[in-house]
C-alpha cells in the first residue's frame, strides 16, 4: 500500500516536472498565438483575463500584416536570401565535406577543425570590417549583402555536418565504382552523392533555418524597410514611432516562427547525429 502511494507520488512528481518544462519552453509561443488573434479592445483591457479570449478571436491583425505592411516583401526577401545561400553553401560545402572526410588524411582533420572554428568567430567581431567591405562593393542596404555574408557561417557549419555524414559512407562503395572503371570524381558524383541525398537535404534545411535565425548582420547592413528579412522586419519595423502594435507583432512573429520550428523537429535527430558524429569519433 505504502509502496503504491510512493509510486503515485513519484509519478505525479515526474508529470509535474514535465509540465514545468513544457510551460517554460512553450508559454511565450502560446502568448504569441493568443495575442495574434485577440481584438485590440480585448488586448488592452486590464480587467480581462489575459490567458484566453474575452472577445471572439479576430483575423484583423493577420490581415493588417499582409495588406498594410511590407510583411510579404520580407517573406520574399528571406526566401531569395535562403535559396541563394543554400546554393552557395552546397557548392562549397558538399565537396569540402567529402574531401575532408576522405581524401586529405591527417592534414584533412586539422583543416576540418580549422574550418569549423571559423564558425565560432562571432558576427559582432566581424560586422565592422564587413560593413566597410560591403560599402566598398556598393552592396550597402541591399539584401545581396546578406547573400554574400551568410555563407561565412553556413559553409563551416555544413562542411562539418557533411564531413560526419560522408565518414559514415563505406569507402568500399567508391572503390567498387573505381574498379568498375569510374574516375574518382565519377565515383563521387555517381555513387556517393545519390547515397547522401538525405544528408544533403538536412544541410539544405539547416542552412535555410540559419539564414532565417540570423539577426546581427541583417541589423547592421540593412536599414531600408523594403530590403529587410522576415526576422529583422518583424523585430524592428512593426514598431511605429514608440507605439507597439502587439497584435500585428505577435502575428508576424508567429508566422515567421512556424516553418523553422517544424523544420527543426523533423531534422533534429539527423542534426544531432551530424554534430556528434563530427565532434566525437
Amino acid at each position, binding site marked *: 500500500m505504502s509502496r503504491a502511494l510512493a509510486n503515485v507520488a513519484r509519478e505525479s512528481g515526474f508529470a509535474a516536472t514535465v509540465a514545468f*518544462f513544457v510551460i517554460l519552453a512553450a508559454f511565450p509561443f502560446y502568448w504569441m498565438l493568443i495575442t495574434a488573434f485577440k481584438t485590440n479592445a480585448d488586448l488592452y483591457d486590464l480587467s480581462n483575463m489575459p490567458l484566453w479570449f474575452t472577445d471572439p478571436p479576430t483575423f484583423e491583425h493577420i490581415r493588417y500584416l499582409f495588406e498594410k505592411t511590407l510583411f510579404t516583401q520580407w517573406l520574399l526577401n528571406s526566401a531569395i536570401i535562403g535559396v541563394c545561400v543554400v546554393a552557395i553553401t552546397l557548392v562549397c560545402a558538399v565537396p569540402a565535406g567529402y574531401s575532408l572526410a576522405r581524401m586529405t588524411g591527417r592534414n584533412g582533420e586539422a583543416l576540418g577543425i580549422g574550418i569549423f572554428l571559423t564558425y565560432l568567430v562571432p558576427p559582432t567581431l566581424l560586422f565592422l570590417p564587413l560593413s566597410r567591405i560591403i560599402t566598398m562593393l556598393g552592396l550597402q542596404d541591399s539584401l545581396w549583402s546578406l547573400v554574400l555574408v551568410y555563407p561565412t557561417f553556413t559553409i563551416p557549419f555544413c562542411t562539418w555536418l557533411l564531413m560526419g555524414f560522408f565518414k559514415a559512407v563505406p569507402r568500399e562503395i567508391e572503390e567498387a565504382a573505381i574498379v568498375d572503371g569510374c574516375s574518382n570524381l565519377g565515383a563521387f558524383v555517381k555513387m556517393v552523392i545519390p547515397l547522401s541525398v538525405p544528408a544533403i537535404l538536412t544541410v539544405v534545411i539547416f542552412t535555410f533555418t540559419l539564414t532565417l535565425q540570423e539577426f546581427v548582420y541583417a541589423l547592421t547592413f540593412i536599414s531600408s524597410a523594403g530590403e529587410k528579412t522576415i526576422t529583422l522586419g518583424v523585430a524592428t519595423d512593426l514598431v511605429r514611432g514608440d507605439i507597439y502594435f502587439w497584435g500585428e507583432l505577435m502575428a508576424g512573429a508567429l508566422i515567421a516562427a512556424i516553418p523553422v520550428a517544424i523544420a527543426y523537429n523533423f531534422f533534429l535527430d539527423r542534426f544531432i547525429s551530424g554534430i556528434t558524429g563530427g565532434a566525437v569519433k
Partner: protein
Amino acid sequence: MVAITEKLAKPQSRLQFVLDRPRVLGALFVSPAVLYVLALVGIPLCLAIYYSVSAYTIYNQDYSFVGLRNFIQIFQDDVFLRTLWNTFLFTLGSQILGLILGKFGALVLLRPFPGRKLVRALIILPWAVPIAIATVAWEWMFDSLYSVINWILIALGLMNPADAPNWLGDPHLAMICVIVVNAWRFFPFAIVIFLAGITAVPQDVIDAATVDGAGFWRRNYQIILPMIAPIVVVGLIFGTVFTFTDLSIVYLLTMGGPVNATSVLGFEGFQVGILSGDVSHGAAISLVMLPVLFILVVVMLRFIRRREI
C-alpha cells in the same frame, strides 16, 4: 577543374591513378570553401585588428597607426568597464541557469512516456525559433503595463498588485530578464547535448555499475558525467561563445538600458562602431572579446582531441 580532370583522364599507371588523383581532387574540392572563408572571415578579422589600432571613423577615413591609444581610452571609460562586467555576468548567469535546466530536462526526456515526442517538440521551440522573434514575444511579456507575468503572479497570490515590477525599467530586474531570456533560449540546446551524450554511454557500463551497487546519483555523477564530459564541454563552449558575443537579446529587449545596466560588449561595439560611426573604437571594443574566445577555443580543442565515447 575541367583541365585537371582531362589531364588526369589518361593515367600512366594504375598506382599513379590511385595516388595522385585523390590528392589533386581533394585539394580542388576543399578550395572553394577555404577561399570563401578566408576572404570573408580571415580578411575582415585582420581588418578589425587594424581598425582597432588606427584612427579610422566613417567620417574621417584615416588609416594612420595610433598604437594602443583606442584600447587605453576605452579602458578608462566607465561605460565600457560596466559593459565588460555585464558581459561576464550575462554569460555566466545564463550558462549556469541553462545548464541546470538542460541537465534536468535531459533526465526527464530520457525516460519513455506517452507523448514524449510532442513534449520534446515543444521543449525544442526556444532554440529552434529565431531568437529575435522570440525576444519580441518576451518584450511583450515584460510589458510595463500589460505584463502577463505580473498578471499570473498576482492571480496566484504571489504578488501584491501594488508591487508589480516594471521588469525592463529597473536596472537589476532588466539584467535578470536578459539572463533569463538567454538561458531560456539556450537550455533546449543543453538538453539535446546531454541527451546525445547520455545515449552514447554503453548500457553495459551502466548495468555493471548498478550491479556493483552504484545508486542513481553515483551513476549519474561518477560514471555518466565524466564519460559525457567531452560532448558537454564542446556544447557548453558553443553556448558560451554565442552568449558572450551576442547582441540581439540586449538590443531588442533593453537597448542596453536602463542607463547601461544591461549593455554587453557586442551591443556596445555596435553602438559605437556602427551607429556612431567611430569604427576604430568600436573595433577595439569588439576585439576585447578575442582573448576570451581564444581561451575557450583552446579548451575546446583539447576536449575534441580527447574523444572518449
